């Protein structure tokens, strides 16, 4: 069944990724429900071989796609097909992969089990927020494993979550085109921004959906069907509209920059003023997620931008140096990390970001 395996690899999509607490390992989840662990230190070291760029462990985690993953100090939490599962990092690295526990939020009965699109850790109250197909935000107490509350409000499924660090507030963005701000203390909806209703950023041919969301104090950036837009939360006004035609699937603040990725082969770096600072090309036709590796413990693997398939990146198309490769695929396709642009911006080291992506038919191998 060589043909079948080749086809399966070709049609693989990486939905989610997470860096281990120590910063040396990367977990990636694909559409077949497998999670693969890569050793960043091995793959990014100067003497990395093709072999060290392949997964060190691969295991079947879910029946459906693994849409989201987060890490606590000791655990890796993964979710996708309606359930959240916990794995011990220590055990995963020892290659004994047995789930620690699994929980399912209380769903209303439905013909199909709603998926979980986003996981969010709230460190202050040691809880986990899950959101996805049933249009609610479920809060789970990590201490007891019980679901403490559910927040209603979205009219369609939820794509993404973001936590406001200072006040215990959570932002959620969904298919219905609205970004809602929730107060965790009162469990009430505080604010709603219906992005598609603002003419500046509305793009009806792409749809209303909000695919990505990030926040930094009073500022929020979101994108998806509507254009990628920087919002001032208190006044609920769009301040900057980033000139990017393709729908964006992931966005994040990084120092005074905004990083975004989505349809198209590039990771974009924006100034807050809306100026495109740099584009780092990759090999995958589309990116679904970016991940930051901010662990100071592992300076040698501070950068990562994992790309999918297609042609393995064209270093020639940018006049900046390609610094790192992180190949996820078993067929030794390379995922290129480019950090050269950030050298120019005066960063002391590599971009402390692990940009990873999706849509990569070749990123995780079959077992």
């Amino acid at each position: 069944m060589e043909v079948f395996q080749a086809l399966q690899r070709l049609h693989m999509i990486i939905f989610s990724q997470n860096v281990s607490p120590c910063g040396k390992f990367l977990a990636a989840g694909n559409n077949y429900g497998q999670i693969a662990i890569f050793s960043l230190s091995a793959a990014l070291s100067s003497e990395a071989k093709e072999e060290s760029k392949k997964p060190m462990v691969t295991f079947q985690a879910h029946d459906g796609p693994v849409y989201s993953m987060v890490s606590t100090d000791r655990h890796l939490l993964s979710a996708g097909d309606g359930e959240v599962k916990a794995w011990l990092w220590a055990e995963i690295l020892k290659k004994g992969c047995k789930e620690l526990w699994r929980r399912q939020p209380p769903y209303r009965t439905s013909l199909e089990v709603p998926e979980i699109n986003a996981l969010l850790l709230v460190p202050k109250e040691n809880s986990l927020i899950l959101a996805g197909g049933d249009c609610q935000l479920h809060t789970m107490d990590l201490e007891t494993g019980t679901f403490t509350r559910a927040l209603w409000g979205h009219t369609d499924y939820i794509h993404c979550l973001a936590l406001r660090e200072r006040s215990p507030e959570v932002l959620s963005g969904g298919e219905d085109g609205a970004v809602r701000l929730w107060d965790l203390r009162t469990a009430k909806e505080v604010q709603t921004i219906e992005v598609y209703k603002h003419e500046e950023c509305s793009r009806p041919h792409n749809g209303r959906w909000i695919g990505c969301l990030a926040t930094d104090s009073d500022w929020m950036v979101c994108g998806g069907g509507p254009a990628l837009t920087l919002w001032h939360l208190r006044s609920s006004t769009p301040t900057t509209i980033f000139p990017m035609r393709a729908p964006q699937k992931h966005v994040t603040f990084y120092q005074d920059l905004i990083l975004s990725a989505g349809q198209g082969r590039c990771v974009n770096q924006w100034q807050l003023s809306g100026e495109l600072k740099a584009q780092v090309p990759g090999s995958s036709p589309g990116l679904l997620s970016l991940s930051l590796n901010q662990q100071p413990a592992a300076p040698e693997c501070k950068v990562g931008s994992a790309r999918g398939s297609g042609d393995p990146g064209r270093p020639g198309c940018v006049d900046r140096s390609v610094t790192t490769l992180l190949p996820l695929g078993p067929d030794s396709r390379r995922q290129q990390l480019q950090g050269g642009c950030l050298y120019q911006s005066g960063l002391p080291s590599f971009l402390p970001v692990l940009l990873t992506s999706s849509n990569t038919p070749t990123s995780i191998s079959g077992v």
Partner: protein
Amino acid sequence: MSSESSKKRKPKVIRSDGAPAEGKRNRSDTEQEGKYYSEEAEVDLRDPGRDYELYKYTCQELQRLMAEIQDLKSRGGKDAAVEIEDRRIQSCVHFMTLKKLNRLAHIRLKKGRDQTHEAKQKVDAYHLQLQNLLYEVMHLQKEITKCLEFKSKHEEIDLVSLEEFYKEAPPDISKAEVTMGDPHQQTLARLDWELEQRKRLAEKYRECLSNKEKILKEIEVKKEYLSSLQPRLNSIMQASLPVQEYLFMPFDQAHKQYETARHLPPPLYVLFVQTTAYGQACAHMKSSQPPRQDKTLSVAIEGSVDEAKALFKPPEDSQDDESDSDAEEEQTTKRRRPTLGVQLDDKRKEMLKRHPLSVMLDLKCKDDSVLHLTFYYLMNLNIMTVKAKVTTATELITPISAGDLLSPDSVLSCLYPGDHGKKTPNPANQYQFDKVGILTLRDYVLDLGHPYLWVQKLGGLHFPKEQPQHTVIADHSLSASHMETTMKLLKTRVQSRLALHKQFASLEHGIVPVTSDCQYLFPAKVVSRLVKWVTIAHEDYTELHFTKDIVEAGLAGDTNLYYMALVERGTAKLQAAVVLNPGYSSIPPIFQLCLNWKGEKTNNNDDNIRAMESEVNVCYKELCGPQPSHQLLTNQLQRLCVLLDVYLETESHDDSVEGPKEFPQEKMCLRLFRGPSRMKPFKYNHPQGFFSHR
């Protein structure tokens, strides 16, 4: 002075001194006298030592007297003359003594000589005697060694061992009490025993000879009887023919075939035997009736037996035949030797020559279509080839796109994975090709048939992978072990090809021929239509812009068949490039899509197109339908139509555009989008009829 006195007593003293002549006479006198005096006897009495003393004394006296005389003369005194005279007398006396002594010395010398001579003669005699004795000793020693080296004839005779001898020989020969201690006697006894035994054996030999003679005579008699039986049996056979025909028992025919089979080359013979056996076994399994004409597997031998006889050398063939044909061959080759090119061409032909006999195998499938396989044996290459032909019960209208499906060239390609039948399986052939300038067998395959690996295995030929080996012997067990699987694969291949053939016929007319037992896989209403189904070349496929992934993944080899399908609904046109593996349907066809609707969408820029591809390519197992899943291609195409429907109907409506949606949503969907990649609900749930996400 005493000696002097004794001398004086000698008779000599009496003789008077005179002239030398006198002296001589005197001597002869003394000799005469000697007889009387016997001076010789005197010699014996005298002591030589004393004579010597005397001689010395006499000489001294003489010297003294001479000196005195000289002294006196020189003084010249008066009385000197007297004194001189006196002294002269004394001197004379002394001279006499000297003379005597001289004689004695001579006698002594003579005596000594005689004695020496005598002694010497004695020694010589002894020496001679010694020589004789030594010679005699040597001779005797030679005789002794000769005797010691003497070899007796009996040593060459292989005697029975000692224990055996004492155990078996009768006591009157062995005489144990005598021979035990005496090896000589023992050997003699053993020799006796040997002689005895040999005599007995000779007797036995004579008996056996006579026995043999007798048996030969008996055989002769029986042979005569048997040969007289043959015509009778023949007549019985002749008489029974109508009965055989009447009862459908083609024993005679089979017999004839077996007769012909004897002239087959070993690989074809193995194939013939094994296929016949397999065919009979199958027929037996299917029905308890005896094998009949309508069995699914029939084997026949074709070609001229006489040619085979001339070529192939059966053991009973006479040597003449062969040399004759050789001579003929030589003549013909001589005649055609004008140019090098022709000669090389000739050599090539000779090398690729196949055996005049071939085995025909007809494999009948359930639907009465027949796969005709003709197996050939290339004598000089030691490989087997096969030509295939498919005939169907009903005449087929051949669709254009199905051209390659049943062509003899490709119908059996890749029966086992990777077995293209274009290369020679015998590694030794490459060297032979090099000699006559054949680059590859590929150019001759159409003419000769395909040397598939499974054909070699059916013929019991097994070739090592690495080094050439010249002694490959046809092996029955190898053939038998591959027979069943290969036959099954052949049947499946023919059936799947025929099924594809049928499907293509409809597909070309834009009909997706979904069978009733696969209907449950699809919703009742499918709006998208297949409008085109054409075959394309491999190169064209690789040049398409949306097939890059498949080509790069190495899934587009040149043994596959390539097609292009076009599915339409309204203004939307979906192109599908299809790779059909020869191993269909165990290896699924692979689809690559390109949608032309509001711009061009491929898996590169649209996640949902990618999802549609994985629906047909990866999730093909649910589309297989009932075994043996020949309907897979049709179902995949129908599924593609359904997917296009879903894709178009769930496309979010752009509010800014005036007018109704082009594709109103008719399909029942639980949700339109799901997950971060906003997948559309492509999965169809059968009894309820709604669409959901996978």
